[in-house]
């Protein structure tokens, strides 16, 4: 086990069990390895802590909890980065932005694809889509309607 001092205090992690972004994140190519941190309380949010820069961490969530129709299919080059053969081997995550008023938004325009089997991940830009970088969560009424009609 190794330790790093982050802005949230000291974190112990297993170097063999990191989430690896071979290409880094968009605009942040040096951030290649993250520790996945579960949320201690109940809820859909968790976070990843950068090993390369202890000051940097991101909140993530599974966007399909909120947007049932949301699908991201990896391209060939993305499958190569993830070292997977089929698209079924990867899952989608969204980076969460928390503004001061705590009305969080999901970045549906640039999701993270990750493979639990290879522990690799890549942030992709959905350029030819209508998804927004700041997508508010659907109102609770809408969510109930969606799930009851599904």
């Amino acid at each position, binding site marked *: 086990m190794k330790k790093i001092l982050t802005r949230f205090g000291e974190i112990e992690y297993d170097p063999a069990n990191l989430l690896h972004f071979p290409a880094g994140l968009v605009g942040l190519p040096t951030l290649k390895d993250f520790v996945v941190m579960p949320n201690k309380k109940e*809820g859909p*949010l968790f976070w990843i802590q950068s090993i390369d820069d202890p000051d940097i961490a991101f909140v993530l969530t599974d966007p399909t909890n909120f947007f049932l129709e949301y699908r991201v299919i990896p391209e060939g080059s993305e499958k190569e980065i993830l070292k997977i053969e089929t698209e079924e081997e990867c899952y989608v995550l969204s980076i*969460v932005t928390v503004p001061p008023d705590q009305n969080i938004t999901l*970045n549906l325009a640039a999701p993270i694809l990750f493979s639990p089997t290879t522990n690799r991940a890549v942030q992709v830009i959905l350029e030819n889509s209508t998804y927004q970088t700041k997508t508010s969560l659907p109102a609770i009424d809408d969510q109930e309607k969606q799930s009851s009609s599904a």
Partner: protein
Amino acid sequence: MLVLTRKTGDGIVIGDDITIKIIEIKGGGIRIGIDAPKDCKIYRQEIYEKICQENREAMQWQLDDLDVLAPSTKKDK
């Protein structure tokens, strides 16, 4: 910044494996064709910069924020 003048059909080669071609110039817009290796990501600049900006904003948060959506901590109002 290097500035070059090119005509329709002309190209520019960057390194050994990237070629940019001027396809069409019409009404203030320019259609550009790009040949590059598959692992070389190509984006419209304004979209790329918007994602970079959003990633920077997403770094600003506190541990308490993780509980914003947790059912047990929702305020009864």
